[in-house]
């Protein structure tokens, strides 16, 4: 079955895609930190950030509707977070607005990051930056089996729909959902066991090895220095 993948446009080859994953991780994280640290009084700075993100979006060659669509998909969560922020200094609506703007900007950056970097390269980047192997490994498994799990869920839903003529009551629906989740969990356990057996069969002895990552180039150096200068200026004021 076909899914919309989280890194659907990660295989393009724009300058942004060609950057070493570590560069992007550092650069984009730096930007997120800057956005979060910019005081609410510096309203203008947020426009500068948005402008920069818009430039990146342009460079990335990813269709704009896709990027915006992704952001809209996650908007409800952002709204929830914004509503939940405590408003102490009497500037309720303004504080709400600032949290909203910050969240949306960060969201756009993350969407850009995940769609300009292949997931596997991102994992290598994280590892190169000292992220523990066990964590990147589990993220790797997650990425690999997310699709298997989605497939199984979709198939199970189809099987359910084939045998169901009309909707049952709320309680029965929930019961059905519960047993479907249970089945999925049981299957995942079995899958994990077979997978581990497959790993052992290929000589796994508790230690993981990696193949060599992408090279650091002048493009990366340029990107990082430009980013550093920009952030320094925007935070200086």
């Amino acid at each position: 079955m076909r899914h919309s993948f989280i890194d659907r446009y990660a295989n393009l080859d724009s300058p942004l895609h060609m950057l070493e994953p570590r560069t992007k991780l550092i650069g984009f994280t730096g930007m997120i930190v800057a956005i979060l640290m910019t005081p609410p009084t510096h309203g203008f700075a947020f426009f500068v950030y948005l402008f920069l993100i818009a430039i990146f979006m342009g460079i990335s060659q990813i269709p704009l509707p896709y990027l915006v669509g992704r952001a809209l998909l996650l908007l409800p969560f952002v709204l929830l977070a914004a509503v939940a922020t405590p408003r102490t200094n009497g500037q309720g609506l303004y504080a709400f607005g600032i949290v909203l703007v910050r969240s949306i900007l960060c969201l756009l950056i993350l969407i850009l990051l995940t769609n300009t970097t292949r997931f596997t390269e991102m994992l290598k980047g994280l590892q190169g930056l000292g992220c523990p192997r066990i964590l990147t490994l589990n993220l790797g498994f997650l990425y690999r089996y997310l699709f298997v799990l989605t497939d199984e869920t979709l198939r199970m839903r189809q099987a359910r729909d084939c045998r169901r003529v009309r909707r049952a009551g709320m309680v029965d629906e929930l019961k059905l959902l519960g047993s479907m989740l249970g089945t999925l969990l049981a299957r995942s356990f079995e899958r994990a066991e077979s997978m581990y057996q497959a790993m052992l069969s290929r000589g796994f002895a508790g230690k993981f090895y990696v193949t060599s990552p992408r090279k650091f180039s002048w493009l990366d150096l340029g990107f990082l220095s430009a980013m550093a200068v920009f952030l320094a200026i925007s935070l200086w004021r």
Partner: protein
Amino acid sequence: MDDYAVRLTRLSYTYPDGSKALDGLDLDVRKGERIAVVGPSGAGKSTLLLHLNGILAGSGTVRVLGRPVEEPNLEVIRKEVGLVFQDPNDQLFCPTVYEDIAFGPLNLSVPPEEIPRRVERALHDVGLEYTIRSRSSHHLSQGERKRVALATVLVMQPAILALDEPTSNLDPRNRRHLIELMASLSATLVIATHDLELVLSLCQRTVLLDRGKIWADGETRQLLGNDRLMKEHGLEVPLSLRVFDRMARPS
């Protein structure tokens, strides 16, 4: 040094839930032999394969290339016995094809600079383009996945290949490719399968396994052609043999 690839003596295995999967098996496989293990579902075929490289350990002895399958030998034995699982989704657990194929050799401490060459070779052996290496397994078709699963094992250059239902879920063309591929290998093959036509075209010898016991062991055509035996164990004489039999009979 004997010339047996695999020797099982009185092998029994009981699953943790108490169900007996293997019940006193004796089986010898000579080097270079291609042997099929047939039997109804739940006969113990997959469990048997998992004993060949020490993933499961029952009572009795398992010897591979003269070595007992026990803790100190497991590293060598897992290099020599390549196990291909029925579901490629179990076998392919890495984010990309390349990493999956490189997983085994890296565990065997193959020098890193030799890995790309080995991966390329393995992909070539299973009839896939080298460009497929950077793709994720979930983007592949079932046929491609099965082949990559085989490549992840071939890359370790095993002396013995144990395959669990290699042709299940394959369309006729992919099935044909896979059979040709298996026929071209020089390794000892142990194939657990329901695909009796595959057995006829590939294996000289067949073992019939049912309820954890071996009921027959012999020349493939003779064994698969035994109508009474096959029916008794939930199988049937392959169509090609029946047709051949009818044609050979004087009218």
